[in-house]
């Protein structure tokens, strides 16, 4: 395989880890390092400049080191998640719905999550409408014209950067946290509510969703929240379900103590005691 991979196949390789086995080991390491490093990289849909603004925006919402001890949106590759969604139909298999049932994170054989479900004509119409917009096509306007996510992101990111350059004389990506808050919060022209709502919600998906979708790289969104993610086919045993975790002993004792105190205080309050009808007579009605 030549070292000059084009952008399309590069993204494909990065996204579909099951295919990585096809590439030589040294090239893989390079690719993965590049994926984490190059801030000027263009995405599947967004050009390099807008990707920079998007990365800065996501990192502002979910900061990582040095502003926060745990990895944030930049480390998790959240902007890549969003870009891959916007560019879903640029890829050979649209990455809309991952497969199932198992991810092989805890064993169980192949990673079915990395094998994308094939969309039928109806699903493709719906998802293209969402992402690309209705573009004046009657078959996409079952409820009238739709502004697509691609357009919402493009204009939203451009507005952020323009407001930043206009009022603070700096690109948005180079602003500090205070400057970014100002552009997002109160400087005129920066905040487009529809864009920010969509982008924040998708930032969360990229931070906390399964890594196959291109975000949550290294599962950093799961490790700092103590979230195991999908856990099949191992799942959990009786003790893990029914008993407190061993490291919670002190908190359990605190809860017990508090329960005793509350019960002692709340003696006169009858509203929490057994059902009035059941107190008076075993059967009602």
């Amino acid at each position, binding site marked *: 395989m030549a070292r000059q991979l084009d952008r399309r196949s590069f993204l494909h390789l990065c996204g579909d880890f099951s295919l990585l086995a096809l590439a030589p080991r040294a090239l893989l390491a390079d690719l993965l390092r590049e994926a984490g490093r190059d801030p000027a990289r263009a995405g599947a849909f967004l050009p390099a400049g807008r990707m920079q603004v998007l990365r800065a925006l996501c990192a502002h919402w979910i900061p990582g080191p040095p502003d926060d001890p745990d990895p944030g949106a930049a480390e998790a590759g959240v902007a890549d998640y969003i870009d891959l969604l916007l560019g879903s139909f640029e890829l050979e298999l649209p990455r809309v719905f991952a497969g199932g049932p198992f991810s092989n994170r805890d064993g169980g054989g192949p990673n079915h999550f990395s094998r994308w479900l094939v969309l039928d*004509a109806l*699903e493709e119409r719906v998802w293209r409408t969402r992402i690309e917009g209705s573009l004046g096509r009657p078959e996409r306007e079952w409820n009238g014209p739709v502004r697509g996510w691609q357009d919402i992101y493009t204009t939203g990111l451009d507005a952020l950067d323009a407001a930043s350059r206009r009022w603070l004389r700096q690109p948005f990506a180079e602003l500090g946290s205070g400057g970014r808050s100002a552009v997002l919060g109160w400087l005129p022209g920066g905040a487009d509510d529809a864009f920010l709502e969509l982008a924040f919600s998708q930032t969360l998906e990229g931070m906390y969703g399964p890594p196959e979708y291109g975000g949550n790289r290294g599962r950093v969104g799961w490790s700092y929240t103590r979230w195991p993610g999908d*856990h099949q086919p191992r*799942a959990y045993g009786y003790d893990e379900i029914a008993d407190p*975790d061993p490291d919670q002993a002190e908190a359990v004792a605190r809860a017990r103590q508090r329960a005793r105190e509350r019960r002692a205080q709340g003696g006169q309050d009858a509203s929490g005691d057994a059902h009035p009808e059941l107190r008076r007579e075993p059967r009602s*009605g």
Partner: protein
Amino acid sequence: MRPGTRTPNCAGNPEVGSRGQVVVIGSGAGGAVAAWVLAEAGFEVTVLEKGKNYFRGLGDAAGLGPPVFGGDEIRDARGWPGMDAFAEPRTLRSQGDAEDGVARTFTGDVNLLPGTVGGGTTHWDAKVPRFWKLDLALRSRLGPVEGADVVDWPFGYDDLVPYYERCEALLGVAGDLAATPEFVLEEAPRGPYPLPPNPPMYAARVFQESARQSGYQVHPAPEAINSRPYDARPTCNNCGYCSRYGCPVNARGGAAVTFLHRAMRAGARLVTRAMVTRIVTDAKGRATHVEYLSGGELQPATIAADVVVLAASAVESARIALLSACSRHPDGLGNRSGRVGRTLCFHVSTFAAAVMPQRLHSYRGRAASHFMLEPCVPTRDWSGVTGVPWLRGGVVEVGGSSYLLDEAKLYDELPFFRRAQHKQLMRSSPLRDRLLGLQMLGEDLPQLANRVDLDPEVRDVYGLPVARVTYSWHRHEKLASLYWGLRLRKLCRDAGSEWAFFYPAGLGLTRAEEAVSTRHQSGTLRMGPDPERSVVDAFGRMHDAPNVVVTDGSVFPTSGAFNPTLTIMAVALRSATALAHGEAAARSADASLLYNPGPLERHRPLPEGQLSGGKARAGSA
């Protein structure tokens, strides 16, 4: 009856016609049960399902394979499977808005259910309580309530018992009879459960111990979830992706793996991506054909039917009836009474929670594991002050928690958290890992003004008018929610919480469309003896079109105070038995007609490396 011993078409019922061609609309709880009974009885059964099939091996003699379901929160956030409010929205308005002539106040997810093979049972956590005697006799035992159309069901608890038993045996219900409180057994007498209970979840154990000191009997909820291998399906391994997720290992019973699988083995045909647009009737008003849009390309198609079984869920079945208006049925199929779409019930959600000092790891388990049923017992406590003669809450599911992505979105929606606190909140996890949540799903009294009709403007991706929901809570619901919310909050506080709160229905603390999205719905095509006041008879047959049989939750005369699905299945089994073998057989619940589950099948292991994207494509049935 088993395959091989089947009688010829149209076995017991001369009313049905010569060919015995049955078209079932919907493959969820009601449709799958009916399809199975009718296929076993020798009818030619075709199931039309608008969604895709994400199970593998349905109808396959070799047994079920691993499904496509899995713990993928992004897929869920994207409306998979078949819950896409962008493609198939509904609209909502309140009764007051309707009186003021407001067309709608919201367009989007109004209590959507999954549109996929298996219907709502691809996202249930399979809590399967029986209704109580009281649920079927609310009017005669508690009396009327002003502004609500409280009625009795056309049959009683005892009539349903054999059907409950059969459904429970087939589903493989795990429960604990010894731990079930006496007041529950008086209202819903029963024998032992087919399976022992699954492991208790830690949060439920904490709450159980605390509530016991206040006199409440928190006990294991009956669940259609395998606590040991059953029906050729494995034991549940408590992966946690239960409520809202399809079971990744087929440990959970349901419409598809339990009933549709059997129906297809008995000869029923499943057609996916078949969106029904209309039931066509003849000059006498009887159904003759079903029209649908076929495949992803939505090609118009027609199928002839001697009998139509309508089971698309309460909202969608009403919509199909309304879309089927014609000269014989000018206001919609079977709508002489004007009641098609009316008395829509959703259950009333009251949420109470304790933020605990310790982590409760409720992501391990089956979304919730215990019930508290005292709120199902009516009270007259507040009747003097409020003028509402009695208040009834409903089933309380104990111990629930949230998934990670939901938690992240929740902090952003709540007004008292700031985005700058996001990571700190996610680390300490007050509303997920430390949350001891109770959800009460309360009795929702039927009101004529709560209804489904066709939205005059909004369309879905199929080009059809969407269901418009007009819905407001009755005063009973608001008061019952408040009454029990206060009590549940105190119980939460007493469990040793750092912070306890409750979130009653109808006080405007949450957006209306969220508040009604309990995923429980019933009552739009009600059962009853009087054709002027109900849409179907006691066996689900439309008064005005007797060869249209409704078998989903839309036939419920009242909502009940419990998770509805087991009762949907039991009533569907009764109605389908009447259709296949006549009313007398259904009344006597003849055991020989209620079908044995048959020998357990072999569970097919996961085929290594055979599940590529192409293979995962569904909808090719």
